[in-house]
């Protein structure tokens, strides 16, 4: 590839043709401020925060300006500084500056820019429109008064997820990023994946905060409050306490949960192993009974809602397995309650999830047993971090020793990888291989299934059975894969879909990684590496070899797919197409 020589603030760098000034400057160790820019997602040069002097008559937006041979870039001239400051002041002039009480304070790109550029007050006092907040959904809260119209949210929703639940409405001063027809997000095809929250540089899109419900439960002496953290939480929670992206903090996480006052610390990882037992069994049954195939995984609530809205004809193809979170909840309120001699109506199950859509899943009417909700409260990784901070727990100093409780927390290496795209498939194949081969297969790693490519395919032959499988991460990739299947261009036995790009590690409830950091680290890759390390560190790496899984089938459930298993661990879906 042709290399171009450019000089940025006196530093000479050589970069491939097509590189933007913003990226080239990074190589010269110059960080140009950005606001609407989000790598690979929103590169539209709209906000003008990244303007630089490229020797032309007008300043150029570095995020969309490709370098040319011999270009001399100045990023710090008086004209550049004044232009950026003016842009920022204009944005601030009608921004609702409630930073003290804003959940994004200290993690707000606008606030950081104001600090970095030395904008302490704005010369312009703009008119404000007081928009109502949209708080009707169980997952997301939209506050248009904080929106700066950068369009990062709608770019990820429309272009990556291929949903477009929100868009630019109206024009000029009255422009809003909102659902169409003045609707609440709750009345749209939004799947609550929360990718818009992760893209938002400010506090205009946030999760519905459920932490007070958790505090109330913990402080109620009548209640037995049990918690289950999802796999992806343990490789992201540390980021909220200054640790590098992808740091494994499983031990510290359990210690913090104990100190917060949860009565029992269980693990969604146990239910991940349980899911494999049920789902692998369901797949083998479907293959034996001629379908319907392909079978699609059902762990991701965003994917389920997407399928219900857009492909209702595929609902019979969705695995009937509940998500691991719901399985764990159901097992806690039946099997564990029975073993522990506890009245299930006194149990409050709290789930800590990398996910905003889990809040919606928690509210689904069918997720109950004998009049009790199977999961009572679902909070995100970010909400757990806020609870830990408000309790004054010094997270980084906690011991690394895991303090899970007995019976429904033990897990194998097949469980943590659920949090990365391809992980459910890999875990399922580990078990299917042993069943179909009729022996313990030594190889447990299916590397072709790993990585952040939107669509992945593999073909394996196990015990004479040929299995073609595929994986899609992001609803946009799922849409493309389904189109291929429908057009007859591809056919599979088993398809894993996760609504979020990269899987749960990049879920809408995870710690927010700024646009600037995303230029250096891909959280999807760094956090997945943490999960694969967690897998390797386990001595048992196949779900069916988990001793507590064997025990629950022996003593309670019978066989995978039994009537009892169906009653507790399986569900049904709703056609939401209009």
């Amino acid at each position, binding site marked *: 590839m042709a290399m171009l020589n450019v000089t940025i603030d006196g530093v000479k760098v050589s970069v491939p043709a097509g590189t933007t000034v913003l990226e080239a400057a990074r190589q010269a160790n110059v960080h140009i401020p950005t606001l609407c820019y989000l790598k690979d997602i929103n590169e539209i040069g709209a906000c003008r925060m990244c303007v630089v002097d490229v020797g032309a008559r007008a300043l150029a937006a570095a995020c969309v300006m490709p370098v040319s041979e011999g270009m001399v870039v100045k990023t710090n001239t008086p004209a550049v500084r004044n232009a950026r400051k003016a842009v920022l002041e204009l944005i601030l002039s009608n921004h609702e500056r409630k930073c003290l009480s804003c959940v994004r304070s200290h993690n707000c790109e606008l606030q950081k820019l104001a600090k970095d550029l030395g904008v302490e007050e704005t010369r312009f006092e703009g008119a404000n429109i007081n928009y109502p907040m949209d708080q009707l959904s169980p997952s997301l809260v939209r506050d248009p008064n904080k929106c700066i119209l950068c369009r990062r949210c*709608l770019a990820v929703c*429309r272009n990556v997820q291929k*949903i*477009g*639940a*929100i*868009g*630019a*409405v*109206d*024009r000029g001063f009255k422009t809003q990023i909102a*659902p*169409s*027809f003045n609707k609440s997000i709750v009345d749209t095809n939004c799947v609550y994946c929360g990718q818009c929250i992760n893209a938002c540089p400010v506090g205009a899109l946030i999760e519905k905060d459920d932490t007070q419900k958790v505090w109330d439960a913990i402080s109620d002496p009548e209640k037995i409050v049990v918690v289950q953290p999802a796999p992806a939480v343990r490789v992201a929670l540390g980021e909220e306490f200054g640790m590098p992206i992808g740091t494994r903090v499983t031990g510290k996480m359990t210690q913090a949960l104990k100190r917060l006052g949860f009565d029992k610390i269980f693990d969604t990882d146990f239910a991940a192993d349980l899911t494999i037992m049920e789902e692998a069994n369901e797949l083998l049954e479907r293959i034996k009974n001629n379908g319907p195939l392909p079978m699609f995984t059902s762990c991701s609530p965003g994917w389920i809602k997407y399928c219900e809205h857009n492909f209702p004809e595929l609902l019979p193809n969705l695995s009937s397995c509940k998500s691991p979170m719901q399985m764990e909840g159901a097992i806690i309120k039946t099997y564990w309650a029975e073993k522990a001699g506890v009245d299930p109506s006194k149990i409050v199950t709290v789930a800590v999830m990398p996910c905003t859509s889990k809040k919606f899943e928690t509210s689904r009417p069918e997720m109950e047993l004998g009049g009790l909700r199977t999961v009572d409260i679902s909070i995100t990784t970010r909400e757990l971090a806020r609870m830990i901070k408000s309790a004054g727990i010094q997270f980084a100093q906690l011991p690394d020793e895991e303090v899970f409780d007995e019976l429904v927390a033990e897990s194998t290496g097949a469980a943590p990888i659920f949090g990365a795209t391809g992980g459910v498939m890999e875990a399922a194949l580990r078990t299917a291989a042993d069943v179909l081969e009729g022996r313990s297969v030594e190889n447990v790693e299916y590397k072709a299934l790993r990585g952040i490519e939107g669509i992945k395919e593999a073909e394996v032959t196990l015990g004479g059975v040929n299995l073609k499988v595929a994986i899609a991460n992001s609803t946009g990739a799922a849409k493309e894969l389904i189109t291929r299947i429908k057009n007859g261009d591809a056919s599979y036995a088993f398809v894993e879909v996760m609504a979020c790009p990269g899987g749960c590690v990049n879920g809408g409830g995870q710690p927010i990684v700024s646009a600037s950091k995303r230029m250096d680290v891909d959280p999807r890759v760094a956090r997945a590496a943490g999960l694969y390390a967690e897998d390797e560190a386990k001595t048992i790496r196949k779900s069916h070899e988990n001793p507590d899984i064997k025990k629950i089938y022996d003593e309670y459930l019978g066989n995978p797919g039994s009537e009892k298993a169906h009653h507790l661990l399986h569900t049904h879906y709703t056609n939401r197409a*209009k």
Partner: protein
Amino acid sequence: MSLENKEKYEALQNVIDELKNEPGALMPIMQRAQDIFGYLPEDVQNYIAKELDIPVSDIYGVATFYAQFNLEPKGKYIISVCMGTACYVKGSQLVLDKLEEVLEIPAGRTTADGLFTLNATRCLGACGLAPVIMVNDDVYGRLTPDQIPAIIEKYRR
């Protein structure tokens, strides 16, 4: 679906079939849809979205960006209040205010009974009669706000 509506959707489908593979087809399709239906109801926007395989938010965004697209049906009588310079200095804002009060709608909207649509418009070219309003093709000039109720009453009958 009523027979009339069915015919309208068939006409819309023909427009979409004709244009959908052209680059930049969305705006012309929306314009023709508005010609067919008189405005762009939610169902029509959803229909176009489905046929073009784009999010309805794309269509709604365009429909709310350009003033030429109507999201509501137009009234039987379209009232245009001239806000050109001459009319404006002669008090057309007061006339508009009075109309909003009598019709109980803001400018740009249609009354619930479907009788009136109230629009503030640019110069109507009758500056000698300022301030001027038009009700469909009828012109009323040299108006004062107190004349408004009687004019509206005429059309209500």
